């Protein structure tokens, strides 16, 4: 593939590199081959067992809210949450739900979703993720 083809194909960019875009976007973790601890960033050695071999794995795209807060310091309040995705804790912003303690509940079921952040000057669209109440 020459460079111009490559540029033509890349129309989207994920907000972070552990968000994998495609038909069904998902979050990807580096899993320790030895103890299965998972990391969203790179590690030279596993901070749990010190093993140094990792495999990229898909993280479950639905889970349960185990903690949250509603940050009201900025112009727009938002919900920060920890979601237990089948044993892998994920930090995220909850979207598609009113940022009020009446609407956001501990233990609620949520699922991964993505949205557009808009295009840059070269026409590349940025895609971010959040979690939203499960259907």
């Amino acid at each position, binding site marked *: 593939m020459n460079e111009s083809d490559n540029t033509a194909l890349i129309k989207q*960019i994920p*907000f*972070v*590199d*552990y968000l994998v875009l495609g038909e069904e976007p998902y979050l990807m973790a580096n899993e320790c081959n030895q103890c299965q*601890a998972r*990391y*969203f*960033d*790179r590690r030279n050695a596993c*901070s*749990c067992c010190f093993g140094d071999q990792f495999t990229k794995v898909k993280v479950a795209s639905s889970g349960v*809210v*185990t*903690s*949250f*807060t*509603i*940050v*009201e*310091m*900025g112009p727009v309040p*938002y919900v*920060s*949450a*920890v979601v237990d995705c089948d*044993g892998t*804790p*994920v*930090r*995220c*912003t909850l979207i598609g739900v009113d940022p009020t*303690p009446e609407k956001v509940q*501990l*233990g609620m079921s949520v699922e991964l979703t993505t949205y557009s*952040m808009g295009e*840059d*000057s*070269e026409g*590349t669209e*940025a895609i*971010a*993720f959040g979690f939203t109440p499960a259907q």
Partner: protein
Amino acid sequence: MGSEDIWIIGSNMTKFGKHPEKDVVDLASEASVAALRDAEMTMSDIGVLGVGNLMNAGAGIGQQLQKQIGQTGVPVFNVSNACATGATALRVAIMAVKAGEADVGMAVGVEKLAGAGLLGQRGPKPQSETWEPSGRFGAIGSTEGRIGTNIMPGVFAQVGMEYGHKYGGTSFELFARISEKNHAHSTLNPLAAYQKRFTLDEIMNDVMIAYPNTRPMCSGNCDGAAAMIVVNDEKKKSMPAEVQKRAIKISASVLTSDPWEEGCQILPDVNTLTRNAATQAYEQAGIGPEDLDLVELHDCFATAELVHYDNLMLCEQGGAVDFFESGAPWRDGTKPVNVSGGLQSKGHPIAATGIANIHEIVMHLRGEAGDRQIEGAKVGLAHVIGLGSACGVHILEKAA
């Protein structure tokens, strides 16, 4: 803790609050000179100096302090360890004295923060023309708000909510009542930055920062310094009778970092390292939580205080809500917690906090805490935690 006891013979903290007329060195000097006077010593007696300051970590505040109050050429350790910076400076002094490298050590923690805004708050990054991945996660913009939150009030709110998810029983009102207690306690502490009693309604209806923490439920940024002088047994015995009488024994001095826990990369785990530090401290001191007459713990936010009742084993595991509901942590309860007013009202000049918490215990064990004195206090525990994480736990005892 080894064969030889370590003693605190000098201790002081400045009033916490706004000190626009004083710089960092002035504040450190004020606390240091007062601690030296308390110990009936001068800088010529100090064999090792541990100095904590977070905001100017590269500035050699220890040496600047020496130039201000006395240069003798002794080793200076400038330390920074998040909110546990002061406790770390003290650990350095204690370790040096225990190791026999010095007979007398001084630890100082100082910070100027008034007007710095809430802890961990950052301005937006300038946006470039094109999406540029950067940093550890290849993020193309600030993750704050996009991927949850990193700001301290939000992180510690989630710490408390997580406890609620695990054990139940928490509510906005419960966390607000913890804050109500500490603000009530602060009215008796003239060194506190804020000495205002708030009603529960006032706390709950104040500005929401990060649910469930409203403004009075967050520790205040302010200026302040604290200093402490520690000696070994032999040195203590050489001191005037009046100094020996007021000496306080350090029965345990522990500093931990967090061991690996699933999820600690997602939400900082302030629990495991605190529990580990407390376990080690109780072992070192040969006493249990039931023996404590008072506790100063790191209530940087109301939501944090709750989980540390449990982590410090003041209650059974999962029993922090019941512990609070029983009235135990009020100053007239069975296990007074944060009778100084805690960080929520006393203020939180970061590097000073870890020494100031211990100073509060010293004052009570000496019987010099004035209006807020816990009568007959013989044993106390001071806890501090810095995210990242570092946890300091000290257990102090009145001399037999």
